[in-house]
């Protein structure tokens, strides 16, 4: 049976892992390669490196950090943050990324998804969607959650799928950094609307939140950062609990 995936996100700035509260106010949490190796030993299923300030400061994803992490682990590695062109994606892939995650650039130029899917295959293209409750639906924001786009998350997820994205990384801006749990309603709305896997992100506070997002949220994978960084919830213990709740995992 296909396992539900638990993914660790390394939010990186200047070569160091940081974690923001609702995208602001950062504190240090360690060396990316060191953390990735630890998660790999603990049984994490994938690692995502996100250059969280890249879009705002117009910086390119740090090839050196990606390369250092890629040397440590032999599990899927995704790189996101500031990938705006085919060249940016190529630099990430050459540094050792298996998948690239595209957010703002895909909203501005959706054909970039098709271009990258043709070159690397859809399995290498993740569309990252940052969305916020908006009436009865969910509105999409760009530029690290700072700009309203006027687009609906479900509608954009469908279009991105049609254009070649192979997975969706869906972050709830309302929940990100709050530890109040994943946004199960939003995750289920998107996951039920598209034929490709959806990775839920934003709001993980404890083990129960993962159980909920895999059951009520219909998520294929769930991503978290800070709850792993500070060793508050080890990956192994999390997965054992998921298994005890009848959720298939890799242990």
């Amino acid at each position: 049976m296909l396992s539900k995936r638990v993914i660790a996100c390394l939010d990186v700035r200047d070569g160091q892992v940081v974690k923001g509260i609702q995208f602001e106010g950062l504190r240090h949490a360690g060396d990316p390669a060191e953390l990735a190796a630890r998660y790999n030993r603990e049984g994490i299923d994938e690692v995502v490196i996100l250059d969280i300030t890249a879009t705002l400061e117009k910086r390119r994803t740090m090839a050196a950090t990606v390369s250092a992490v890629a040397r440590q682990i032999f599990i899927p590695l995704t790189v996101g943050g500031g990938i705006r062109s085919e060249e940016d994606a190529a630099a990430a892939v050459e540094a050792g990324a298996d998948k690239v995650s595209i957010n703002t650039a895909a909203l501005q130029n959706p054909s970039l998804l098709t271009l990258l899917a043709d070159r690397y295959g859809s399995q290498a293209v993740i569309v990252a969607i940052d969305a916020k409750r908006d009436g009865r639906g969910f509105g999409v924001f760009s530029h690290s959650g700072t700009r309203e786009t006027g687009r609906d998350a479900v509608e954009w997820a469908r279009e991105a799928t049609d254009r070649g994205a192979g997975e969706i990384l869906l972050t709830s801006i309302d929940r990100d950094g709050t530890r109040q749990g994943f946004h199960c309603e939003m995750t289920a709305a998107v996951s039920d609307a598209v034929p490709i896997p959806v990775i839920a992100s934003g709001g993980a506070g404890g083990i129960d939140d993962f159980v909920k997002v895999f059951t009520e949220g219909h998520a294929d994978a769930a991503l978290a950062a800070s709850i792993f960084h500070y060793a508050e919830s080890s990956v192994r213990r999390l997965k054992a609990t998921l298994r005890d709740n009848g959720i298939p995992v890799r242990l």
Partner: protein
Amino acid sequence: MSLTIGLIDYGAGNLTSVRKALAALDAEVLVPHTPQELADVAALVVPGVGNFKATAAITDEWREAIFAAIGTGRPLLGICLGLQWLFEGSTEAPECSGLGLMNGRCDRLPSHLNGANGTPQLLKIPHVGWNTLHFPRLATLFTGIDEGAQVYFTHSYAAPVTEDAAAVTTYGVPFASAVERGQVFGVQFHPEKSGDVGLKVLKNFLESI
């Protein structure tokens, strides 16, 4: 003594991860520019992701060199699309023929199946993530690997379960997650992305040389 592995680059996806994993196991990796260079390698790896039609880039000249290498007993490992290419063909690109070393054709995974209570259950395609291996028989690739071990997949098409199957995985339907016939091996999953289990599969392949 390190062994030189010929890694076939036909433009289907990037080779970085496969190269890195083989290097971590102390293998020398050569990406040949001409079919003639295959004469000097100890074994061949055919990686690849994406559409089956990408295999059309492997011209007759390359096919002959690959057949010649296999003919002299040198092992070949097809990964992902590389496994599918070992079969006769695929419904994904019916106009392209595979190597035909394994009997049967590859087909698209089902997008839904009937659930336990008769209601159709949607299956997400591609099949992405970690899934379990079951072994119908003893196989060189899986020496020292436990039944039920999990490996990383990402694909929409799959090979049929035949007498060549060395591992079987189920996603909607059972499919051949690995094949073995003599010195010809194939894995549908990505050993270079499957943690310790994947590295062990690659190590077993290198030890078959």
